[in-house]
């Protein structure tokens, strides 16, 4: 089947298109990371110094994204702000993935009571939309960036745990796992050595998409002033600051918004490319090809 699939007309073209979105995504995210990481080299101005005579200027060759209400160059602030935004989102995601992997693996491998209990919790967590939970947590525990990140982790592990669990339940029956069991390997060792490698690539695909979603949710909450304001510039808080002046100077939000869109877009492109490369269900079978041509 695998060999025949390659012969299918259009197969090569398909493969090329898939890697195209992956390549564009990787180029985009790499350039964003480089720009942000070396912000001190690329940023034309100081992100914190206020220049009152330059306030609320539109786009120009001097200020690509214009200036904000304190006359600070928005482009420089976007570059420096990216450090906070990207590192916090990424660390929240890593915590989420680890928690989800762990719980999903334990649940899928041991089954029984642990599994039943965890799946019930998963059901309940799925009943809380992220937005609603984030709102209630911020209203009860105060508005802070830390609370926001805790919410992200508390609710974010659910899809990862579900995915991991379903893969582990299937993989448990594989001969390599059963051989290890017969040889008397400890369960943690089976999980790390035999099960983790099978889980890791689908989880990676999901993680790219989830990171994008997470950045979107965080930016939305920050936009409404629920993300608090860290001392250094941050994309979400820049949006939140900017919205007061939006109708007077609409270009004030363009810079940070563009930064968010490009980052999420690159993540989604990578996710899309990875998924197409890895997910066998996405690639139509050989038999489909002539029919599709008839229809197309």
């Amino acid at each position, binding site marked *: 089947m695998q060999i025949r699939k390659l012969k299918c007309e259009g197969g090569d073209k398909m493969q090329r298109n898939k890697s195209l979105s992956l390549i564009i995504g990787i180029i985009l995210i790499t350039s964003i990371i480089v720009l942000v990481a070396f912000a001190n080299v690329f940023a034309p101005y100081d992100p914190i110094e206020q220049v009152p005579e330059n306030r609320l200027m539109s786009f120009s060759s001097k200020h690509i994204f214009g200036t904000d209400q304190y006359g600070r160059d928005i482009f420089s602030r976007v570059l420096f702000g990216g450090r906070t935004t990207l590192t916090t989102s990424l660390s929240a995601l890593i915590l989420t993935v680890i928690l989800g992997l762990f719980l999903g693996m334990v649940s899928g491998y041991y089954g029984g009571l642990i599994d039943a209990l965890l799946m019930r919790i998963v059901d309940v967590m799925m009943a809380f939309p992220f937005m609603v939970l984030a709102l209630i947590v911020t209203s009860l525990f105060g508005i802070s960036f830390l609370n926001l990140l805790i919410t992200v982790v508390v609710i974010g592990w659910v899809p990862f745990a579900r995915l991991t669990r379903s893969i582990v339940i299937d993989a448990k029956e594989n001969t390599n796992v059963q051989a290890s069991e017969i040889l008397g390997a400890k369960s943690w060792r089976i999980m790390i050595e035999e099960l983790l490698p099978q889980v890791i690539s689908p989880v990676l695909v999901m993680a790219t998409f989830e990171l994008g979603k997470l950045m979107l949710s965080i930016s939305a909450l920050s*936009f409404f002033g629920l993300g608090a304001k860290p001392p250094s510039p941050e994309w979400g808080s820049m949006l939140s600051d900017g919205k007061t002046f939006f109708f007077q100077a609409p270009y004030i939000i363009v810079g940070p*918004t563009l930064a968010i869109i490009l980052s999420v877009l690159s993540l989604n492109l990578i996710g899309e490319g990875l998924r197409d490369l890895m997910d066998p269900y996405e690639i139509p079978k050989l038999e489909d090809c002539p029919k599709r041509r008839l229809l197309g």
Partner: protein
Amino acid sequence: MFTKILKKTMEMVVTIFIATIIIFVLIRLSPRDPVKIVMGNPEIAMTNTKEYDIRYEKMSEELNLDKSIPFQYISWIKRVLKFDFGKSIYTGRPVADEIKERIPATLLLAIPSMILQCILGISLGVISAVRHEKFTDQVIRFISVFFSSVPAFALGLMLLYYFGVHLKYYEVSNVANLSRLWLPVIVLGVISSPSLIRVVRTNMLQEFGRDYISFGIARGLSKGDILKNAIKNIALPIITILALSFVSLLSGAVVIESIFTWPGMGRYAMESILLNDYPVTQAYALFMTIMIVIINFFVDIIYTYANPKVKM
């Protein structure tokens, strides 16, 4: 069938029960003192301390805060079952009434958005599947990836600025009427369609591999008839996505309602959070959670009805 529904109903009740416990625990874990929120701080209230303490005690007793935690939970549940969510600290009116007033506006926004999502999602998804790997497909795929990367508030703000401020075509006010409906509906519909496009496309491609399609082609059925059959067969995944997006339209409307100053539930919840009006937030969270559990329940029922093989 009947036993399955009964089992699902039991599960739903358990889920709602656990959800209420979580919300209750969150409320009790909160470092805020509800009595102080209701009465105001002693420094701000400027009353003499002794009188304040007595009133504080009385209020705590009234709110059952001196009783044990299980007792508090039960009395809270009892009130919730009677739709008594307490009074808004800000307006002093019962929260249930305030929410009830705002439901129509939210539905007025959510239902047309879902219809738009359906139209966009199914048509573009089918076109994308039919023109698989052709230029049209690539364009549709890129557009859907792009719109799933745009924050809803950014799209909303840009359109609001363009139509409201620049063209002065859209009325910027805070009433819910039909003439103000189209812009938020466009934003919500466009933002929520990528997931549907994806699901329709993938499932259609899988359907195209099935024998009945070849049979249809062999019999000389028109392309439209063949597609009609295929769409019927992918109804289940479409229903799932629509149910999920109805939920996210209800909860995600927080953002869009706030931007378009639409007087629905989402904006109300957002305002209450910024005003520290905590009874409202709780009621909103509880209401949304129960709604979602019920929607999920119906999706499961539809699933079993359409496909009795589904294990529940």
